[in-house]
């Protein structure tokens, strides 16, 4: 008898929970129609950053009357693929790399095909920005923020006390470097370590120098794979970059130390007493890695100038930048289209820009809303720049842009391989199809 009772109990529990979970499951998903909420999935992480994005999203919810949720993930690049493949795609995704976005274009609704205010946005956006997320004449994504990368930071107090001046040409930059060396100090702080992404800061350096020595047209060909890494143009740029990075005494500990230093920490050394170095080339977001007392008083503690142009190179000042691109994955959700329109307009994101570090991708944004003079100055320089180009490694195929380009730079700068070998190896890793 005992086994019979157990059997009955088992069956009862089984059937009961089956029915119940069915009911609850239906309740969760069955919210259709006009009040459909919108989920945004993105790679903007970090407690402070997420808080600001959520504030901006709340502002957007209020303006559009749509319930919007932001879900951040550190593993965005991996998860977005598996989410879309697994039928669990978010309504909107924020791609940090337009290369990945275009790679997944078959899952994305082009902005030309929906009523999401593309024309209005393209008028206010920094010219050239949308090109990074366009393919075959269609626009698949639009930027929601930007972080200019061609910036050189310096510790303002110590820099001025030593009587140094901001250079305006590459030669002046090299002269300044030598002058600092003669004064017995280390001129540059450079760090490439970034966990599994180690090497990316060096790819930014090289991109900046390709823009400056070979110019934007060559840059575009290079990014598209038409101009080889081993071409004289790219090699010349790498050599110009090597003059700054690898000359004896330019960085404390040389190439091995550069490869070893975490990119964020390396910037802090500028503000040691006495300064560990006087120059640091990094994107606008690096301010969030500065020591707290510097961040509180950014305008007085930190100075910044645009990496100067190279003589005999491209005639003008190019700016290299990056940003997050919004893409529409579920156009059947009408509210998602509505949210998209707001997201890519110059209205979105004010709480983020007021906190500093990142900038609006729209030229129409009111610069007086930026929190400090440093950010305002950067915004002006970007708006005045002759050429804007998106971070090339984010546009190249992943095997190169997040693979051989990173490791190649690490091998070269760490002194394990010479420049020619590295450039040829990167060329060989470029996927054939």
């Amino acid at each position, binding site marked *: 008898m005992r086994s019979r009772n157990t*059997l009955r109990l088992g069956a009862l529990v089984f059937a009961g929970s089956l029915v119940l979970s069915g009911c*609850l499951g239906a309740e969760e998903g069955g919210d259709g129609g006009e009040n459909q909420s919108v989920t945004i999935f993105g790679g903007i992480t970090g407690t402070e950053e997420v808080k600001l994005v959520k504030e901006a999203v709340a502002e957007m919810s209020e303006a559009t009357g749509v319930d919007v949720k932001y879900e951040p993930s550190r593993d965005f690049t991996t998860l977005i693929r598996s989410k879309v493949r697994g039928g669990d795609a978010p309504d909107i995704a924020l791609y940090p790399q337009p290369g990945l976005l275009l790679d997944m274009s078959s899952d994305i609704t082009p902005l030309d095909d929906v009523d999401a205010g593309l024309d209005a946005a393209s008028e206010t956006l920094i010219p050239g920005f949308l090109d990074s997320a366009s393919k075959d004449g269609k626009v698949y994504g639009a930027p929601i923020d930007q972080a200019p990368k061609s910036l050189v930071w310096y510790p303002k107090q110590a820099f001025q006390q030593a009587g140094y001046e901001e250079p305006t040409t590459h030669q002046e930059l090299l002269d300044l470097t030598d002058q600092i060396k003669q004064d017995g100090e280390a001129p540059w702080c450079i760090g490439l370590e970034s966990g599994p992404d180690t090497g990316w800061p060096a790819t930014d350096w090289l991109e900046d120098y390709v823009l400056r020595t070979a110019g934007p047209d060559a840059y575009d060909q290079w990014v598209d794979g038409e101009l080889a890494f081993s071409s004289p143009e790219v090699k010349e740029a790498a050599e110009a970059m090597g003059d700054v990075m690898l000359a004896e005494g330019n960085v*404390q500990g040389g190439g091995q130390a550069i490869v070893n230093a975490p990119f964020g920490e390396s910037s802090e050394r500028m503000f040691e007493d006495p300064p560990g170095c006087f120059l640091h080339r990094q994107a606008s977001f690096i301010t969030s890695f500065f020591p707290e007392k510097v961040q509180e008083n950014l305008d007085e503690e930190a100075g910044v100038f645009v990496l100067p142009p190279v003589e005999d190179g491209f005639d003008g000042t190019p700016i290299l930048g990056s940003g997050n691109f919004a893409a529409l994955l579920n156009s059947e959700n009408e509210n998602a289209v509505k949210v998209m329109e707001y997201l890519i307009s110059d209205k979105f994101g004010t709480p983020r820009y007021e906190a500093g570090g990142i900038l609006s991708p729209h030229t129409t944004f009111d610069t007086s809303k930026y929190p400090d003079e440093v950010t305002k100055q950067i915004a002006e320089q970007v708006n005045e720049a002759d050429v804007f180009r998106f971070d090339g490694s984010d546009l190249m195929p992943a095997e190169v842009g997040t693979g051989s380009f990173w490791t190649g730079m690490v091998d070269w700068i760490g002194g394990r391989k010479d420049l020619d070998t590295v450039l040829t190896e990167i060329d060989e890793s470029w996927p054939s*199809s």
Partner: protein
Amino acid sequence: MLKAINALLAVLAGVGGGFALYLILNWLVERLPGRWEDRIKPYIFIGPAIVFVTIFLVYPALRTAYLSFFDDGGEEFVGMANYVDLLGESSFLNALFNNVLWLIVVPAGVVIAGLIVAVLADQLSTRGENAVKSFIFLPMAISFVGASTIWRFVYAFEPEGRAQIGLLNAVWTFFGGDPVAWVQNDAFRLNSFLLMVIMIWLQTGFAMVLLSAAIKNVPTETVEAARIDGASEVQIFFQVVVPQIWSTVITVFVTVLILTLKIFDIIYVMTGGRFNTDVIGNRFITELIKFGRDGRASAIVVMLLIAVIPVMIYQVRQFRQMEATR
């Protein structure tokens, strides 16, 4: 909250369902005439397990092998191209070579270190032995990622003129050396060997426990007989004790070998495969997740699978022999 309740119900339904399934099937079989009941019953109980192994292990393995002959999207048949490409790349061959090094050095290192600790601890008082063994066993409780993070501090490097926060460099510079970027230094694969030390450190405790038990099981008569015959302690150890614990040594060696075949975490955390330290486990993750190249990633796993098969066969045989002698 709703999700939590749903999860709980799912667990209940799953466990209850499994339970009910066995009960129902058992009840059905009991209705059969006696002879048939005995014939079918074993299959009723082993059947579900086989079904699950087939669905979750055999099928994915076959599917992976199938995909390894296709392109990155899994759409176009490319024959052996993935294998040919991979085996023609110096970086992949390099990873293979590193794997072979790992497979030789780590299991051997673990067995030797475990044996030394087990033998030496055996000479201590019971209390001392327990204390020492507990200490050596402690790292077993740490995950590979956790251990790697700890060892990052051991191998940390700062340029000359800055304070050395890394243990190894602190000692090194104390004795007058210049700071060395340990994990970047691949002369004679030094950095790979330094990473292997982490795994040996982690697994020594496991080897020690098994080997120590085996040593204690060696009959004292055999040792005493050898002593009376005038054998030295070293001779006794190698010619009397070791042959008697050999099967345990093999078990430990093979277990660590299989663990080493799958090595990935330590490389990923410490170097990400840079500086000539890559292994196939890490290469697989890179191809699949970073580059989205399913075909190549599948080909890598298939090669790994083929490499494991001989080890598995050997272990199963060894296990059967042990069962037979018991």
